[in-house]
């Protein structure tokens, strides 16, 4: 299975709306060269790192809150980013600094503000009430969505078109800046999760078990949440929200490798990366004039597979 995924990763850059002639690719002044090295390869890498961030964040949220439904998506962090981006689009803001667009910056702050809001609100909950935290996240999501609807209502046709494109999520990138940025962030996230893997193993038993074995659970939880939110905030601000990957990839890997969380970190990261590259390859393969949004494919493939997993797990 892993080798199959690796083959997809290698083949992926060759698939797309324009069929590339392999002999042309390595001629530096050809169009094929430009498409391959400035569009396809960066895009595959971007998709891979995006998958790593989504999958690891899902694993992290599920473990830290000991709840199978916790992801940055279900907690409203992605919606926060979308609303931030929506505000930037409505205000008609362009690039602000260092070539980074206002949409990205607003999206990033939308995500981070949501995290702080959740952390602030969670102080009013008992430490065991993680269901309430999930409800808070869902409530925030609904609130953001309604706020976004108002922006739609007030927006003109062009703004609304941009906004719709953004909310559908897209992995198309031009050049190497975004893939490199995301690569660095996904590496930081991976390293943080890996360093705390034994703490996570204890946290996945229960909070009191972790405390009784000498872990400062509040500190570890906050630190890992911040790193993962940084990753999600950056990703969503560039690509728009990509649902389902963070929710299902950790569960799929757990199903294939039923071991404790510390032994699933590397596999979850890799599988997340491969899975998103796979889904993105399909969107490019199917595309004719305009591209299918990536979120549609992740949900179309992931949804039925996930239902299958839940049903077979329930039988056991």
């Amino acid at each position, binding site marked *: 299975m892993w080798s199959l995924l690796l083959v997809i990763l290698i083949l992926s850059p060759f698939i797309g709306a324009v069929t590339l002639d392999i002999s042309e690719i390595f001629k530096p002044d050809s169009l094929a060269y430009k498409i391959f090295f400035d569009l396809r390869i960066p895009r595959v890498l971007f998709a891979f790192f995006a998958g790593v961030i989504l999958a690891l964040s899902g694993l992290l949220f599920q473990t830290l809150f000991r709840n199978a439904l916790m992801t940055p998506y279900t907690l409203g962090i992605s919606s926060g980013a979308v609303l931030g981006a929506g505000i930037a689009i409505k205000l008609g803001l362009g690039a602000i600094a260092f070539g980074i667009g206002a949409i990205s910056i607003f999206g990033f702050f939308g995500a981070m503000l949501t995290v702080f809001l959740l952390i602030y609100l969670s102080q009013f909950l008992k430490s065991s009430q993680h269901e309430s935290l999930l409800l808070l996240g869902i409530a925030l999501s609904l609130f953001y969505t309604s706020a976004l609807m108002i922006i739609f209502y007030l927006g003109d046709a062009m703004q609304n078109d941009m906004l719709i494109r953004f909310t559908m999520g897209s992995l198309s990138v031009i050049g190497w800046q975004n893939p490199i940025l995301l690569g660095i962030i996904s590496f930081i996230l991976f390293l943080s999760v890996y360093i705390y893997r034994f703490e996570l193993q204890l946290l996945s038993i229960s909070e009191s*078990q972790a405390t009784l074995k000498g872990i400062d659970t509040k500190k570890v939880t906050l630190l890992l949440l911040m790193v993962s939110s940084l990753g999600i905030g950056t990703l969503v601000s560039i690509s728009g929200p990509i649902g389902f990957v963070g929710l299902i990839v950790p569960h799929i890997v757990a199903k294939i490798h039923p071991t404790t969380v510390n032994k699933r970190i590397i596999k979850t990261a890799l599988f997340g990366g491969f899975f998103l590259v796979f889904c993105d390859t399909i969107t490019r393969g199917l595309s004719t004039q305009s591209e299918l949004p990536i979120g549609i494919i992740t949900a179309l493939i992931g949804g039925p597979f996930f239902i299958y997993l839940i049903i077979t797990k329930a039988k056991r």
Partner: protein
Amino acid sequence: MIELKSLACGFNEKVILQNINLNIENHLSILGANGSGKSTLAKAICSLIEFDGEVFIDSVNTKELSLIDKAKTLSYIPAKLEIYDSFITVDEFVLLGRFPYKKSYFDYSEKDKKIASNTLEFLKISHLKNNIVSSLSSGEQQLVLIAQALAQQSKIIIFDEPTANLDPHNSKIIAEHIKGLKEYHQIILITHDLHLASYVNNPVVFIKDKTTTLYENNFFNDDNLEELYNVKFNSLVAQYD
């Protein structure tokens, strides 16, 4: 030696324990009615909950102890294992008791693994080592929790209603282990199970009306029990011998 100085705790403005002053020199059983604050007292000793006043272990205030040092000093065994992870096996779970001692960044040491497997042998549950913890019976889970606490090698072990979910046969097995462990550890036993308490035969603290009364002996006589629990007793005797 555990000292409690004007300890008080409560939840949501409801006072559960008030002005508790207690010197626990060695083994102790804590008894009391439902909701009287037995578990609260144990959790305050472990700093699992917030409390007013002070807890000293060997003259050190627990608020000044690091979490790791606390873990090396005392372990706490809950009545029922709460567990989210549905894959962890018994030997992996018991090895978690070695977390406070883990030095290498990469893995638990061979010595840690040896200690963990020794505790399984000691409790005669080596045959369970590859089983998934969350699918064990309550009796087996209680034994696995004890194994983890033993791997933790803490001086003090706090049992919080160890037989609450167990049938008489499993209760007897646990009771024998607790009694046996008195030789190596300071045992604090919180329980409703009068058979267990009289068999383990520690001095007893009875919690009533938010305060404690210490009974060095003479707790387990019918008149005393009747007065405390408001139920007629007829020669409660230890059934496990």
